């Protein structure tokens, strides 16, 4: 299917486990982003990537790792999950060459619960 997809849509994991959230887009957009959404905080940027093999930190990167070996995929890994990482995670992509000009297309989100 065309567009931007995330998997899994729902995940429950235990404290200390490693978890990987997947994001895939079919548009060949240059930019990809990971956000977390929590009540009272809105959407906060975790990491972003301007192109394959280029990643950079956002506002709240601690405890997360990203990679981007292919343009279409941008996985987010929680190395050792903590309860504070319970959240809804959104992946987004943009075709624009610059963040300031570009509409971002969001995936459906992954609801992660850490017990």
């Amino acid at each position: 299917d065309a567009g931007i997809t995330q998997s899994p849509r729902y995940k429950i994991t235990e404290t200390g486990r490693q978890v990987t959230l997947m994001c895939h887009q079919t548009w060949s957009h240059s930019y990809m982003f990971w956000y977390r959404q929590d009540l009272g905080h809105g959407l906060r940027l975790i990491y972003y990537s301007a192109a394959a093999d280029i990643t950079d930190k956002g506002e709240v990167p601690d405890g997360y790792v990203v990679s981007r070996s292919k343009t279409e995929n941008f996985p987010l890994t929680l190395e050792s999950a903590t309860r504070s990482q319970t959240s809804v995670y959104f992946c987004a992509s943009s075709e624009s060459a610059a963040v300031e000009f570009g509409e971002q297309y969001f995936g459906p989100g992954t609801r992660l619960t850490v017990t």
Partner: protein
Amino acid sequence: QQPVQSPQAVILREGEDAVINCSSSKALYSVHWYRQKHGEAPIFLMILLKGGEQKGHDKISASFNEKKQQSSLYLTASQLSYSGTYFCGTVTGTASKLTFGTGTRLQVTL
């Protein structure tokens, strides 16, 4: 630093108008507006670039005051479909990142 949105929540009757404000403590390069319905992903509404540009489509428009480092979203003759949470996102001159505000919850009733 997150932009500040006001009000935090607003309830309207169908057909009424609303204004949502977004202000930043830093100089703005662009302002982005998104709407998110409950349980869904945010959807893009519009981007405004520095220069005092006003944009709009249908009955939703926005302005950008570069000097005041503010943007306002105008919803006129609101419809039930306008209900949701509206987020402004800002790009400042110091970083090519979009920073979102905490959102304004809008509910339109009959």
